[in-house]
């Protein structure tokens, strides 16, 4: 393969492999923020989901049960965040950080016995069966969770656009006064949106431990949950744009290792920074000073 082809294949493969956790966490965060709440705790949910998913898969032998229990664990932690934040004078951001630390702490504490064993992994769909090159074949081995994530993104888009429930979430997120006038329970909507959002983030965590890289240890997340929260801003609170953001982020993450394999070895630290540089650039280009971000829910504020 020519070097340019190699890098392209690697970036496509990277996009398909690495993007899934970003996709799930950013979708979850998108749902929560559209209801007018920030949940920085999703980093903790990601780690907890990874641990619970791995442990369940190991104990029961069924990785899909692992995914389900990761979602449940995420929903519980999200509900805790949502519940406490609905009390008076509780700050979303501070509480989110507390949830993040609690999630990672719980996961590390209960995850100790699962660092060593190997748990059954999720199957992969061999979409590259037609290809002759083994690189292409392995690049196109895609986890079913990726497609579930894609489906979830489009379903969420439809949910916001075309359903009564979606409209309620948007009203609560855009104007608490309007919601009160309509007789909606702001607390309940936000609680449910936070719990559901964290359930998605939990699934993202189970992808890390049950598909790629496919093992549980304490350095597994290395900040991916926090980056996904930033991706939501980048995707302008649009679920379908979250897919694009996650794919770009995954692809640029694969750039560092693949450039090293084709012999561009100078400055690999810089290549590892590409995902962040890309995010910064797009934000800088699309932002207009003095104006609120397009698509930003009106109730969203870090001051509360």
């Amino acid at each position, binding site marked *: 393969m020519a070097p340019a082809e*190699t890098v392209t*294949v*690697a970036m496509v*493969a*990277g996009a398909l*492999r*690495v993007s899934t956790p970003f996709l799930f966490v950013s979708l979850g965060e998108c749902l929560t923020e559209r209801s007018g709440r920030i949940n920085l705790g999703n980093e903790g949910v990601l780690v907890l989901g990874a641990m619970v998913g791995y442990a369940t898969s190991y104990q029961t032998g069924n990785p899909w049960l692992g995914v389900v229990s990761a979602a449940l664990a995420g929903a519980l932690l999200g509900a805790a965040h949502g519940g406490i934040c609905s009390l008076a004078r509780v700050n979303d951001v501070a509480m989110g950080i507390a949830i993040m630390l609690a999630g990672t702490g719980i996961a590390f504490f209960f995850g*100790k016995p699962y*660092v*060593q064993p*190997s748990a059954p992994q999720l199957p992969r769909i061999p979409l590259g069966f037609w290809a002759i090159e*083994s*690189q292409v074949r*392995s*690049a196109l081995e895609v986890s079913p969770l990726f497609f579930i994530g894609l489906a979830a993104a489009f379903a969420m888009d439809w949910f916001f656009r075309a359903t009564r429930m979606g409209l309620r979430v948007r009203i609560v997120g855009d104007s608490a006064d309007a919601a009160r006038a309509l007789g909606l329970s702001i607390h309940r909507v936000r609680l449910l949106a936070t719990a559901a959002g964290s359930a998605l983030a939990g699934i993202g965590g189970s992808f*890390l431990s049950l598909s*790629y*890289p*496919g*093992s549980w*240890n*304490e*350095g*597994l997340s*290395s900040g*991916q949950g926090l980056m996904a929260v930033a991706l939501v801003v980048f995707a302008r609170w649009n679920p379908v744009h979250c897919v694009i953001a996650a794919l770009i982020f995954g692809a640029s*993450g*694969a750039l*560092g*290792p*693949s450039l*090293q*394999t*084709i*012999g561009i*070895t*100078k*400055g*690999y*630290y810089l290549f*590892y920074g590409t995902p962040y540089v890309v995010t910064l650039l797009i934000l800088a280009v699309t932002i207009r000073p003095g104006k609120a971000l397009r698509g930003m829910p009106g109730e969203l504020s870090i001051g509360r």
Partner: protein
Amino acid sequence: MLNRRSLLQGATAGGAALALGGALRPRAARAGTLTIGFIYVGPKDDYGYNQAHAEAAAKLKTMPGIKIVEEEKVPETDDVEKTMQSMIELDGATLLFPTSFGYFDPYMLRVAKKYPKIQFRHCGGLWQKDKHPLNTGSYFGYIGMGQYLNGMAAGYASKSKKLGFVAAKPIPQVLLNINSFTLGARAVDPSITTQVIFTGDWSMPVKEAEATNSLADQGVDCVTMHVDGPKVVVQTAAGRSMYVCGYHADQSRLAPQKYLTGAEWDWITVYRMFVTDMQGGSPLPNFVRGGLAEHFVKMSPYGPAVTEAARKHIDAVKAEMMKGGFAVIKGPLRDNKGAAVVAAGTAYPETAIQLESMNYLVEGVVGSIS
């Protein structure tokens, strides 16, 4: 100065001391018991660097008159000073093993000056007589020799003649391992090259998996690594049907068919020696190094993919190493940019101090340090 964590520990230790008749220091509680503190930078069951130390600590526990206190995931910051202090003040430790590279300077040196009666032995640091306190010291093993043998096993197993090395950071110990692995493979077949990928830090599971995958995409069919927890690399490589050579600890359980052999630490030798000296009241050595012959380093048992011819050749070279004086790095040797780094006639055996400041990749390695 005590922090909150040490106060909490103090509450329990203090309770124990009271129960023993008001002795203020637990050290005085039971004469003859030697309390030893182990400090790890990561989790002690990481299939890697920390596990190798923790396994040795677990073996020490079976010796009579020994009490072990351990703390894992201690960052290479002020935190390690507090951990050392609390082990000394509250647990009564008189011998400390801070095992991570970054603990040495300035943290361990600072605490050592404050507690001249406590013994500190650090893993990997470069202790110098005129610069460092006499109650400190360092120990390390010549694991590069193990990587040379790994390289030979890889050289025999590889069909594509392209090997891979997933490395964390370009520090001298890592570079020596990459170079030794490559030279071992090229001793079997001079046409072999090693592609190295740096991930940038000691534990980056997603990058390590990506690196292993992109090596597989390039046609590399055998990899080894120098990262703290090799589990992800081993599993990913076996999943892409590549052969693997292990590092730090035995990872054969993770890839029984694809695991060739591995370079492992055998720290119990070092620790038992220090402890015996301490119990016997003789002074502890300050600068301890050893290799295969001294049982500081060992090899994993061969996997099923290592052929009879390969085993014979590797065993022969290993026997040569056991005699001492075997040099992996010897002239004439060029780096991978073509410059001569070791002149003809010069040889650096494993004991050569020059190897601990290595700053080049040898010919046959694809990759660069900066």
